[in-house]
Each structure stands twice: as C-alpha cells, then as structure tokens.
C-alpha cells in the first residue's frame, strides 16, 4: 500500500513547489522530511492541500524550539481520509517575535492544538478566534516547553542525574526551598490581588445578565460549571456551559487540571526512561500507548521486530482496545443514569484481560511492556492461579469475550430508554468530523471509514482479516454501537493472532540495552489507539534523550468538537455526549 502511494506523494510535491515558488521548499535537514512553508503563504497552502490534493484531515499541530537557531517551528501533519502517508509541513518563525497565521479558518481541528502550542511555546497564531492558554492557567509566566524554561525543583536538563550515584545521599526535593530561584513571579504580579481578565471574560453572560437586569429585563441565561469534580466528567475536567433555560447556548471545555508537562518530562528522560511514562497517558490503554511510542522510536532506529513479538504486540493491543471499549460503554451507560450495573458487567470481562496483562507484563494497567525492537518478556507458561496461559487466553478470546459482547448487545442495544436518550443526540456530520480532526470511533460512527490499521497499516496489520466498522448517523447511539462492532472485530484479530503466532522465537531484536542511542532526525509514529489516532512526534539529535517529544493525544483533539456537538441540547445530553466521545484526562491534559 505504501509503495503505491509513494509516487503520488512525489507528484504532490512537484505540484506544490511549482505552485508556490520560493514559499514552499523541501526540508533538507538530515533525517527530516516534508516542506518548509513561508508563513505568508500558509493559509493559501493549507487551502490548496485540503481542496485540491485531498489532505482533508489535519492530524497534528505542534511546535519545536530550535534554540540554537533562534527559531520556533510549527509542525503540521496532514492526511487524506482515504489513506496513505502524511504530508508534513513546517513553518518557522523567530523566537523573539513568533507569529504564524492560524489555520483554524481552514481546519477547525487546529483550534485546541494551536492553543496548546501557544501555551507551551508562545507561538502567536494570528487570526485564532480564542487564543488563550489551554493547559496552563492564565497568568502563568513563561512557556514551559521552551528549552530555556526550567520547572520548580529543577535538577538537571537530562536524566540520569549525577546526584544519584555514586554519592547518592538521599534528600527530598521538597526540602529545597520551593520559592528559590526556580519559582519566579512576573514583574508587578501579586498573587493575592490578581484576578484573571480572561477568566472573567469566560463568564460573558453573567455580565450580560447584570447589564440586562440593570436595564430592567428579566433574562434566564446562566453560566454553569460542570466540573472540575463532576461525576459526569470522567476525571478533573470542567465544562463551562452557558444555558438558556436548560438549552446549551455555548460550551467551553476547560482542562489542564492533570497537566504535568508530560512532554517536558519526556524530553528530560532518555528514550527508554520514557516508556513507562507513556503508560500514564491514557491509563486505560497503556499497551497501545507503548506501541505507538515504540513504533516512533523504531522508525528512527530502523529496528526489525521479530515475528513472535509482532504477534504478541497485536494481541496485547487488540485486547487493550476491548478493555477500553468495555470501559467506555460501561461508563457511557453510567452517564445515562444506568448506575453501575452495565459498567460492572462490562469491566468484569476487562478484569480477565487485566489478569492476563498482569501475568505477562507484571502490571494490570501500567504495563510498560513494549521495548524498542520487541517486547520485554515472552508469554509465561503459567498464570497466577497455575492455569496454562495459552489455554486461558484462548478460552477468553474464543469463548468468553464473544459471548460477553453478545450479552452486552442483548442487554443494552434495544433498551428503549437508551435509544431515547441517545438516538439523534450529539449528531456529528462526517464533513464536520473530518474538519475538526476527529479520529477513532468518533469519526467512524459518522460514516467515515478511516482506520489507521487499514489507511496506513503499521506493525503487521496487513496480515489480518478484519472489517473497518462504520455507522451512518454519527449520534451517541452510533458511537455506542460502533464500540460493540469494534470489540467484535478486535476479538477476531486476537483469534487470528493466536492462531498464527509462532510457537517459539525471539521476542526482542538484539540484546536488551538500557542505553539506546537514536540516530538524529524526526519521526512520527502513529497507531489506531482505542480512542483515535495516537501519534508520537519525536525529534532526536543523536543522543539518548529526545530533543522534542510530542504526543498527539486523541482525547485532547476529539473534544475540540464538544462545544459544537452540545449546542442546542439539554444539560443531561451534555453528560451523555461527553461520555460518548470517551476521553481520559491523563491523556487530555498530559
């Protein structure tokens, strides 16, 4: 498939360069690919690739700080929803005055991602409708992902730190004064007296109401905060809802409560160090996070994964998808008010899968199982209760899980209450889904048959026989149904993987090494995670730490469309719509 598409990309390249002479130049740095676009022509360029070349899905927008060159770079990855490799383009801007035109007018899905790049790098996207910090709070000083920014308790630029060995006399970071030179306030800032203008501006209707009341009107618009600790929000997440009666007029997601600057941590870590940190992104689906990261690094290392390891990986990742969808369905039903009976029926099956993960990887959720060039350990012979591992997993995949899906189907699908609550609620038309960069079940429930396992097969997915499920309506009910469909397909893939897996063989290419040196260059590894396209953008300078490490988090990008989906619905529907998008805050906030 990739071979067939390659000439097409070259043809695109030629036409692009011909069309934008001097404005579009190929990126000639060693190990890099794609184009460098002149900021003046960016919008024109983006419109051209979308309308004329079919790159309709702007998957990832991020920044990189090339401090030695004095430049900030915005990196864009665009894809065709018909499949094929990425069109990568970059825009460079000076560090002192970083301004780049915003692409929100062309790709609305760039909205949150551009805000994130602004938040982390200070790149100002001219023309962005709502350019505010998104993960950090308003009033935060500095841009955390810039290379010259240092966090509180800063110890060193790169791990491992020298203080640990050989003279590792323990001390706590807290013992150091937290108000030392690592923590600074901006000039003239007094935390006690400060009130964020932006925060106040988020409540326009409150002011409107005061104004209207002063004029003698009676108005019923009101601002309600759902969250940050609301049972419906699946974690610490806030929805700022403007209501007219009970109808949603406007909804703005507010996030960042779980932000720990995962990407900065990733840039301090060595490549290997970072693997267990990826577990903590989408903690429901750690295996698939592992795979995405491993693929990105393996692209640079050019390592060849042994056959048996490939099959084990697929088995694990598909079981993870089942886990995730069971979880998603269970908690969607919770949001609808079917309190915990469906959720517990669903996660009971998940429990068996987690038992299997525990026996193989050593942990139920934070698996840390994949390594560069394979997996960490082979399947054990016996599980924790002395049962044969293969017998257990075969029994589970061939009998138990398909039966459980059927039961879940009988249990829920025709339930009239569920149907009334979900059919026609939160409808996402296909063109809007693509424009907003939605991926995963959310996109496929809108009838767009886009699945990376088919669109750009990675690992050994080209060997498996499975269907890319789609549903036509794009409402909450379809998003529920598609998860049931996908679980069935995943079980099929697991069955094939178990059938075809070589009985013995290597599970890791080369010798295990803790000091992985990665050749210089950039790479973008992406997998069809359970929630959508999970991408890892890595820039290496040839050392054992990543220079830039970015996660294209599906939960984060899928909620860009949340506001649009909820408009015109009732408060109770908001809860259900959010549940149907299926987010995990560990990944959203990173």
């Amino acid at each position: 498939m990739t071979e067939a598409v390659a000439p097409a990309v070259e043809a695109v390249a030629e036409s692009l360069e011909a069309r934008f002479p001097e404005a579009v130049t190929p990126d000639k740095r060693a190990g890099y690919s794609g184009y460098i676009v002149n900021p003046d022509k960016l919008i024109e360029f983006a419109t051209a690739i979308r309308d004329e070349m079919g790159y309709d899905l702007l998957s990832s927008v991020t920044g990189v700080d090339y401090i030695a060159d004095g430049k900030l770079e915005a990196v864009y990855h665009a894809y065709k929803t018909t499949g094929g490799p990425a069109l990568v383009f970059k825009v460079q801007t000076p560090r002192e005055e970083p301004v780049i035109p915003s692409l929100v007018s062309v790709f609305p899905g760039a909205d949150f991602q551009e805000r994130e790049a602004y938040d982390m790098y200070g790149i100002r996207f001219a023309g962005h409708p709502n350019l505010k910090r998104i993960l950090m709070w308003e009033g935060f000083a500095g841009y955390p992902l810039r290379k010259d920014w240092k966090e509180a308790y800063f110890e060193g630029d790169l791990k491992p730190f020298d203080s640990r060995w050989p003279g590792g006399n323990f001390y706590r970071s807290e013992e150091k004064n937290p108000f030392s030179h690592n923590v600074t306030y901006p000039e003239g800032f007094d935390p006690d007296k400060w009130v964020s203008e932006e925060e106040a501006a988020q409540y326009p209707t409150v002011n409107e109401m005061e104004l209207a009341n002063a004029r003698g009107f009676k108005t019923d618009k009101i601002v309600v905060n759902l969250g940050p600790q609301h049972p419906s929000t699946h974690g610490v997440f806030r929805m700022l809802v403007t209501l007219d009666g009970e109808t949603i007029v406007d909804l703005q997601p507010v996030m960042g409560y779980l932000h720990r600057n995962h990407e900065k941590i990733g840039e301090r870590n060595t490549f290997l160090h970072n693997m267990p940190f990826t577990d903590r992104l989408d903690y429901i689906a750690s295996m698939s996070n592992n795979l995405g990261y491993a693929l990105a690094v393996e692209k640079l290392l050019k390592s060849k994964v042994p056959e048996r390891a490939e099959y084990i990986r697929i088995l694990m990742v598909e079981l993870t998808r089942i886990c995730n969808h069971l979880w998603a369905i269970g908690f969607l039903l919770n949001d609808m008010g079917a309190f915990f009976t469906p959720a517990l029926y669903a996660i009971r099956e998940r429990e068996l899968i987690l038992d299997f993960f525990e026996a193989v990887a050593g942990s139920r959720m934070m698996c840390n199982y994949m390594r560069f060039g394979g997996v960490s350990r082979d399947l054990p012979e016996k599980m924790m209760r002395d049962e044969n591992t293969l017998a257990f997993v075969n029994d589970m995949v061939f009998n138990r899980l398909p039966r459980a899906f059927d039961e879940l189907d009988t249990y829920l699908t025709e339930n009239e209450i569920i149907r009334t609550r979900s059919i026609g609620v939160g409808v996402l038309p296909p063109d809007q889904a693509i424009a907003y960069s939605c991926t995963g079940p959310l996109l496929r429930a809108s009838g767009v048959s886009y699945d990376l396992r088919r669109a750009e097969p990675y690992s050994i997915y080209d060997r498996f026989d499975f269907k890319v499920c789609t549903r036509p309506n794009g409402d909450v009910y379809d998003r529920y149904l598609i998860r049931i469909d996908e679980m069935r397909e995943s079980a099929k893939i697991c069955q094939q993987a178990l059938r075809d897996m070589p009985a013995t063989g290597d599970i890791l290419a080369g010798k295990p090494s803790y000091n992985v040196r990665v050749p210089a260059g950039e790479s973008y590894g992406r997998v069809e995670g359970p929630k959508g396209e999970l991408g890892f953008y890595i820039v290496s300078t040839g050392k054992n730490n990543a220079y830039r490490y970015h996660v294209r988090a599906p939960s984060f990008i899928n909620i860009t469309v949340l506001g649009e989906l909820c408009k015109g619905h009732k408060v109770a529907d908001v809860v259900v719509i959010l549940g149907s998008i299926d987010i995990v805050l560990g990944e959203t906030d990173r």
Partner: protein
Amino acid sequence: MYGLGVVKGLWVTLKHFVDTYTDDVQWLSKQYVDKEKMNARQSPKGKGLFTVQYPDEKLPAAERFRFIPFLLYEEKNGKQEDLCTSCGICAKVCPPQCIWIVRTDDPVTKRPIPAPKEFYIDTDICMNCGYCAEYCPFDAIKMDHDFELASYDRTTAHVYDKAKLSKPVSYYAGIRPTDYAAEEKARAAEEAKKAAKKATASAAKKDAPAAPAKSE
C-alpha cells in the same frame, strides 16, 4: 412491542442474579473459602460472583507482578552478603530517578569497593516500572510482591534504606520460582562456560610449553 428491550435487559440481569445462586449450589458455597474453587470463580469459566472480599479474601499475585524493588542478599557463614556491586545501572535506568546509591570506598586506597554503602529508594516516587530489576546485570535487585504498604507518615516511612530493602535470596526464590530457576540455569551455564574456557586455556598453557619442546 414497546418496552421489550427493557425487559430483555432485565432478563440478563436476572440471569446474572440467578447465576450467583447456582454457583453457590454447585460449589456448596465453598468457592468463598476453598482456594481452588475461588480460582475457578475467577477464571474465564466463572459465572457467579466475581468479586472477592478484600482483605478477608486475597487474590494470588502473578509471578511477574511487580511492586517496589528490594535488594537480594545471600546468607554466608552467618553474614549477609549483598549481591549488589553498586555499579549504578539501576540508578541510571530508573525513569523517575528514585534510587540513590552511595558507593563504598576503601578507607585506605580510596578505590571503590563493589558493594553499596547506602542504598535508598523513595517509594513515593517509584513508579514500579521494573527497569532496575530488568537491567541489573547481577540479579541483585528484584521487584517485590508486597503491596500493602500503607503507613501513617510518608516523610520517614516511605524512604527505604538498605536495611529495609534487603531480603534473602530464598525469599526471591519463593515469590518468583520460575524466574529464579531460569536465572540459576543461566548462571550455571555461564559458570560451565567459564570453567570450560579456563580448562581450555590451562590446557593450551600446558600445550604451549610442550609445543616448543616438541620442535626442539
């Protein structure tokens, strides 16, 4: 008929409800006390109650289950002999950097001695990734199974020093029999290889002076 979907759903719930009782009848309620029957309850074939009453009932941990590292020592002549050589690989490979090692220096020559003087692990920071055990070349640090660590004071109780971390090899062999057997086998093979090498080397040495003797 409207409402049939709800009824069908309720039928599933009822089936689950009844299943717990048929399970009880089948096992005569022994699945709550008998270990083997409890295992059957938790297997892919289990139909009845799936939950366990922690802490009265406890699920067995998988052999590979990992939680907080510990240091291994061998009992030799009534003395504890650490396997750790304080090479520092675990401290370097630790992702959250929670391992702190003080290397022993010879008091006279100031040269490093392959043994740790101090060894700290901040268990609040440890993320249980298992890298230290995975990459230790001496099998001197391993992941534990003991997960019940709650305590009243985190600032003092959660930083483990060498005394608290050290556990005998027999403990390790007990919680991870398969891994231990595999490592023993690998070590024995290594020893045999070394011995064979030594034997060939000494044989070559014997041959070496003999060869010129022959030529003379």
